[in-house]
């Protein structure tokens, strides 16, 4: 990994260990307030879910022909959030990007918790949650197996694999850092970290197998991350609904996922950096690089929007044209234009270096990125189903109800609760990998890097 001679000398190995280990000290009142807010949101979600269980999915706003709505929107939204974590931890690892080391742990933890959140929504959406295991191929009394030609089964395999692999990837990365924390901790924490670091000492044999294994895990996670959102997009693209049935969907969804994920990483890192005093480890440079990733993927998303509308017009297919006219100027025009402004035009601000290096501005933009990306999924799912050629079967304009919003609020609470618990109990920034990009202590100046 490249060494940066420009790093200030104050940031030594010891400084890195102690600064990051300090983030695990007794939490402040602010932390408990945030955690309390997350748990309160989760409670709203749980109560709503209990109502849904008791009275059925009719409480959600479903109305013919819109039977995929906010729950599926949230599912795609959270899976999308998950993507930048693996991008930063695996793809940038293979590209040998030194800057990823300071931000990848946060992104990876975000990935795991976002997949955990996303996975709940198909279960909520099916209505009879107690039959979820029908998705799993198991020998049953009628000799039935799942239909492997259905994209929904591909999705189950893709999300299941993604959750498993991103979890083991996160845990693998954590082991050397937990060991570093173990060697500083006292009391019950020392016992916890001694157990969870499974005997890590940093011996040459451990590093030899670990670094090799990590390389292969990254190499496996790289195609996986690109496949997962492609498979999610095929849930739609394999159907014949105008607005869904497009070959552009896989790359379009993957770019959108990374765009929203980078947005969420910025949203999460800004308060963490402040709260934990990590300004010298997570620098403006890191934020700028994340903003550049947002700019790149946001531009791809904007291009995909343009392509969709162009293809609808250029195809000459009247139904396709009507569906896209409905999308832009129908009763849901506000959702479409929120999406186009937040995802198509807002990232263009990031061309300006002043904005890219201003953390407050980035924080605000990152929130709009996620608002925009939520609406993108809403537009694709709800508005395509409500629009042409289905309007003639519509009873009433679809609108989400309190049950939809309650479950969605609960999902944010669930995600932030896990994330907050994680950052206080395990190193939220990689200790060993941040050290890797520092010049190592030497008795004589290095011939290569001096």
């Amino acid at each position, binding site marked *: 990994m490249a060494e940066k001679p420009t790093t200030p000398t104050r940031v*030594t*190995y*010891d400084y890195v*260990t102690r600064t990051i280990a300090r983030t695990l000290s007794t939490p402040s009142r602010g932390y408990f307030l945030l955690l309390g807010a997350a748990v309160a949101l989760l409670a709203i979600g749980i109560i709503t879910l209990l109502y849904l269980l008791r009275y059925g999915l009719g409480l959600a706003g479903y109305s013919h022909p819109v039977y995929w709505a906010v729950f599926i929107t949230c599912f795609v939204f959270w899976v999308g959030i998950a993507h930048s974590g693996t991008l930063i931890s695996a793809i940038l690892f293979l590209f040998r990007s030194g800057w990823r080391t300071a931000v990848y742990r946060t992104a990876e933890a975000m990935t795991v918790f976002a997949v955990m959140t996303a996975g709940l929504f198909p279960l909520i959406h099916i209505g009879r949650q107690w039959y979820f295991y029908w998705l799993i*191929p198991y020998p049953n009394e009628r*000799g*039935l*197996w*799942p*239909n*492997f*030609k259905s994209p929904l089964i*591909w999705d189950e*395999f*893709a999300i*299941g*694999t993604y959750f*498993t*692999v991103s979890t*083991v990837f996160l845990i*693998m990365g954590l082991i050397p850092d937990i060991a*570093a924390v173990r*060697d*500083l901790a006292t009391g019950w924490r020392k*016992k916890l970290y*001694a*157990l969870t670091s499974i*005997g*890590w*000492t*940093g*011996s*040459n*044999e*451990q*590093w*030899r*197998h*670990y*670094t*090799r*294994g990590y390389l*292969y*895990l990254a190499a*496996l*996670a790289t*195609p*996986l991350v690109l*496949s997962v959102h492609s*498979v999610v997009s095929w849930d739609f693209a394999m159907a014949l609904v105008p607005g869904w049935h497009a070959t552009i969907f896989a790359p379009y969804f993957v770019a959108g996922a990374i765009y929203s994920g980078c947005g969420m990483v910025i949203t999460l890192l800004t308060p963490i950096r402040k709260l934990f005093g990590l300004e010298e480890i997570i620098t403006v440079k890191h934020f700028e690089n994340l903003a550049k990733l947002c700019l790149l993927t946001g531009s791809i998303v904007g291009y995909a929007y343009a392509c969709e509308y162009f293809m609808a017009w250029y195809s000459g297919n009247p139904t396709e044209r009507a569906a896209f006219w409905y999308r832009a100027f129908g009763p849901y025009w506000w959702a479409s234009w929120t999406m186009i402004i937040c995802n198509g035009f807002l990232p263009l601000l990031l061309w300006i270096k002043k904005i890219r290096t201003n953390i407050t501005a980035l924080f605000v933009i990152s929130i709009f990125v996620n608002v925009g990306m939520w609406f993108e999924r809403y537009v694709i799912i709800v508005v395509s189903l409500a629009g042409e050629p289905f309007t003639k079967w519509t009873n009433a304009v679809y609108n989400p109800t309190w049950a939809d919003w309650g479950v969605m609020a609960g999902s944010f609470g669930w995600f932030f609760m896990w994330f907050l618990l994680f950052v206080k109990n395990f190193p939220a920034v990689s*200790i*060993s*990998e941040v*050290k*890797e990009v520092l010049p*190592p*202590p*030497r*008795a*004589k100046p290095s011939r290569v890097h001096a």
Partner: protein
Amino acid sequence: MMALPKPLNDLFRPPPTPGMLAVFAQLDTTLDAIKKLRAAGHTDFTVYSPIPRHEIEDALGQPVSPVRMFTLVGGIAGCSIGAWITLWMSADWPIVTGGKPVGSIPPYVVIMFEMTILFGALSTILGILLNTLFAARRAGTILYDPRFTNDRFGIFVPAGSDKAAKVESLLRDAGAEEVRRG
């Protein structure tokens, strides 16, 4: 150290190995010591470092980790299992959907791909765990210092009382800031 049940203790805590532990503050002095130890004919010593460094790997000259075989075998197994479950389950309950053949390969590629990744990743983890466990058992229970995960490098050289003095002077010559016996 925590007490473990006896079978776990036998597995994870092999009998102690006598030897010398040196603590180094710099990377280049550590590398120097590794070269001197290898020149003096030592092969079974352990190097501790807070981060993986290619210089240490090069100085030790060890072969590439066998973990890659685990990845390969796991990946091939996953791909085969993916092909098997889709094709066999379709044949076991044949239903024609969408006018496609009962066993149609293109949609099954998705399952085969995901299973390749899943099994490849899990067997990679297994490979890391097994290989490090075997290495730890070969080395025996050896001295360790909590500073090795922070900012110090270390070398443990297995040595009986007859060779201890010689090893100690070699390590001190190389620039160790501290040498301990255990």
